[in-house]
């Protein structure tokens, strides 16, 4: 009897389709693209602001185009998913000692959501939405 191990290859392009766990992960990674594009847009808005009122008005008009609206809706969904997926895994990296034990993971996750809510409220009040 001889050894002749059979090696199964993993597809470098479709491996994440194998199960829901991998799909959730790849969505978290893809969400970074939308956040990156949104940040690029934000940087561009500052550039337009620096170029004067005319450039700024044109930029603001551009934001109400269907493409911009769809992109911002998608970016919002992905940014929310991105934040939630990272909040949920924070306890793995963050171990906070309290006496002989550690602060329970769910408490750390809840603290992140509460902080997120508070910061969002402050920003909404600051920009005059609330």
């Amino acid at each position, binding site marked *: 009897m001889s050894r002749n191990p*059979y090696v199964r290859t993993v597809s470098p392009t479709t491996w994440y389709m194998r*199960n829901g766990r991998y799909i959730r*992960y790849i969505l978290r990674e893809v969400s970074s693209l939308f956040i990156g594009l949104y940040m690029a847009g934000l940087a561009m808005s500052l550039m337009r602001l620096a170029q004067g009122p005319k450039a700024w008005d044109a930029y603001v008009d551009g934001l109400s185009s269907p493409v911009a609206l769809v992109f911002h809706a998608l970016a919002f969904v992905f940014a929310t998913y991105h934040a939630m997926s990272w909040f949920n*895994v924070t306890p*793995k990296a963050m171990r906070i000692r309290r006496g*002989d034990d550690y602060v329970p993971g769910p408490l750390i996750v809840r603290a992140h959501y509460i902080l997120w809510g508070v910061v969002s409220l402050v920003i909404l009040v600051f920009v005059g939405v609330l």
Partner: protein
Amino acid sequence: MSERTIELEILRYNPDTDEAPWKQTFTVPCQEEWVVLDAINYVKDHLDSSLSYRWSCHMAVCGSCGMMINGEPMLSCKAFIRDYGRKIRVEPLSHFPIERDLVVVLDDVMEKLPRVKPYIIRDEEKPVEEGEYKQTPTELYEFKQYSMCINCLLCYAACPQYGLNEEFIGPAVLALAHRYNKDSRDEGRDQREEITAAHEGVWECSFVGACSEVCPKAVDPAAAIQQMKIASTMDWYLDRLPAGLGTRIKTTLMPRRTAK
């Protein structure tokens, strides 16, 4: 006692006769309390004695009977038949070469295991007459979770990064390195970091988290790896502080780091 019949589809591979693995389905009458391993044992005892697979304790302690059950890495002694439908698909653990049927080649992990020096390293051993190294329950609690690994390697079968790049040291071995780093008796973290902080160490991990989700002993390798990433990053910055400041911080705040 109630009985149910299942269709057990097993991936077969005979290295002497087969070009590639193939599927074979067995009809197995099961008892209500049976686990998948019992059904496989039934096949071996009554239907096909040539079936090869590993198992030993039948109680989720030995870590031998890991396999893919309906695509999920599981201990077959812990997967109850009643939790599945009429058809159950069984394959050897993903990401490992198949030796024969459900037996996989574990050489890669066995080679990586000693590289992280999974034992207590001391700068100087104290004389025996000074007695044992004592630990408080709190100090034990720091690493106990990571010492519960049974080397079943379900985490490697779940980790897509290991599947894509077998240079990756991988979840269980890194968790074991973390176990010794967190042990109050150990002074060997700097030595282990040569392996763990390398690209093929913790930095190959992209935090999918699958390793921890499939771990049958709640070891949580993903947590160990993320904590090691933070420690390795801290070390990187400390090593770049001027005038030996980083070394002074290490020796005063992290006295266990001194072993050469």
